[in-house]
């Protein structure tokens, strides 16, 4: 009887702890959404003043902010294409082929995920100083850095998908007289596509949100995270929360959209 009561308490303590931690993780997002409708009492949008849709109506009140967003999105698109292409090729080689120096390459792929960002940024900027000079820092050095730190995440994601694939499907294609190229285009690629798309989304998210490596390799360019970081010293307008909320809503909508075919499929079954 007593042990039963203890068990009940323990089970519910665990539940309570879980709920509290989830609230802790979600609280800042809620604050961000709510404060995007605030009319800030001063330069800092930290204290609730009164409801206003002003920031949503004029998201580009600061033109610096909107040009920084444009720059961040452009960099993220180019870095995503580069990292996804390079990483997918590596993932195919790692799962489908035998070659020398396999474990060395595994370590090389793991290290960028394990190194603190600030050291990667620092060593890379030192490398650029010594090769192309500090004047050459800018758009392309940011892109190079972003491809570098996203690459390993692409490899991991695509590799997981490849490893989980049923190898008999490709054998079946070969039995049906498909050439290796046909098998790759008609069987392998469609099956790996979700993994490649997930990897692309991940590297886009990593790129658009990066501050530390970006600030070290940016030269005179200002990306959106750099704008937020710098503005923190003199003002935090409600527009920043509007951009944050928009990013959140777009991602949530994208995920919901991706679930729709799944739901329809299970309903039919």
């Amino acid at each position, binding site marked *: 009887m007593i042990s039963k009561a203890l068990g009940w308490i323990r089970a519910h303590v665990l539940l309570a702890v879980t709920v509290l931690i989830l609230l802790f993780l979600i609280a*800042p997002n809620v604050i961000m959404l709510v404060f995007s409708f605030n009319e800030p009492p001063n330069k800092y949008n930290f204290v609730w003043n009164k409801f206003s849709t002003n920031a949503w109506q004029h998201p580009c009140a600061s033109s610096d902010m909107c040009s920084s967003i444009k720059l961040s999105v452009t960099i993220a698109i180019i870095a995503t294409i580069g990292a996804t292409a390079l*990483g997918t090729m590596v993932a195919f080689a790692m799962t489908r082929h035998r*070659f020398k120096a396999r474990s060395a390459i595994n370590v*090389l792929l793991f*290290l960028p995920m394990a190194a603190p960002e*600030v*050291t990667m940024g620092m060593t890379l900027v*030192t490398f650029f100083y010594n090769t192309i000079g500090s004047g050459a820092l800018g758009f392309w050095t940011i892109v190079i850095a972003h491809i570098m730190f996203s690459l390993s995440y692409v490899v991991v994601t695509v590799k997981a998908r490849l490893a989980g694939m049923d190898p008999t499907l490709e054998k079946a294609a070969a039995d049906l007289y498909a050439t290796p190229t046909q098998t790759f285009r008609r069987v392998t690629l469609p099956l790996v596509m979700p993994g490649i798309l997930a990897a692309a989304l991940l590297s886009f998210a990593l790129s658009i949100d990066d501050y530390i490596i970006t600030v070290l390799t940016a030269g005179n360019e200002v990306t959106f995270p750099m704008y937020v970081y710098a503005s923190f010293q003199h003002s935090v307008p409600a527009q920043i*929360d509007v951009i*944050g909320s928009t990013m959140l809503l777009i991602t949530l909508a994208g995920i919901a959209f991706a679930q729709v075919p799944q739901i329809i499929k299970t309903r039919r079954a």
Partner: protein
Amino acid sequence: MTAATAQLDAGASPAVGESRRKRNPLPYILLAPGVLWLVLFFLIPIFTAVSASVQTGSLDEGFTLTWRWANYSDTFSTYNSEIAHSLFYSVACTVLCLLLGYPLAYFIAFRGGRWKNLLMALVIAPAFTSFLIRTIAWETILADHGPVTRFLMDVKVTDLMAHLGLLTNNHQLLNSPFAVIFGMVYNFLPFTVLPLYTSLEKIDPRLHEAGADLYCSGFKTWRHVTWPLSLPGVIAGTLLTFIPAVGDYINAYMLGSPNTMVIGQVIENEALRSESGYPTASAMGVVLTVGTLLIVLFYVKRAGTEDLL
């Protein structure tokens, strides 16, 4: 995953065709661009930074390699408090993340039922928007006259925390070591939870029943069955939390004060805003890189390379 990969290695080659025999150049062609990219922009820069860390000079006159190893001892003596802060905050953050993340991952893995995926989505979902903006949101929640601060003042917790040196004074949560660690735990908790969840989820729940059948108490079952089996997740989770935490300076900058400066801030300041600071920044970067590499290599030796990815 390791087993699956090995199986594919063995099975894939004959399936795709006899043309892919020994000396097949294809894997090297596939690997070359990605591996070269990492060698050129990740590996070689580490060596450049080692060389830069023993140079002297300034931005105007240029830097020359003088093998001045004293740059290291200078760095340590000038910035010993920043180094101490970084270590203390990142260790505290890692321990707290494990203490909070373990019960969370445990609950989702064993009690989550059909809500498992939704709950894990809730853990990751906050990251769908800029982490700088989310960190700024804590300025609102922990604000000086806000409800959280006032409640903790009423129950005298702030007095205790100020006494322990976690707060700068007993009426303010922000601009303190507490706020920095708090923000770091918030930002890095998902990094702990994900690997923990992955390894807990693999554990067969029937092992718990077996423990109970053998008259093991719930705690004993956890201690002797669940905990050892979840160790790979614990190691991966703490590693993936500690490493970004030790280099992080966003939380120290946004939620801390000049008294909570960490290594990352020093590196950024020396590299971007100081005339002759770039060897110092390199020295600091090299120390941080070598330190993390040692930790990672230790981990690789224990866990093997295939499990990393």
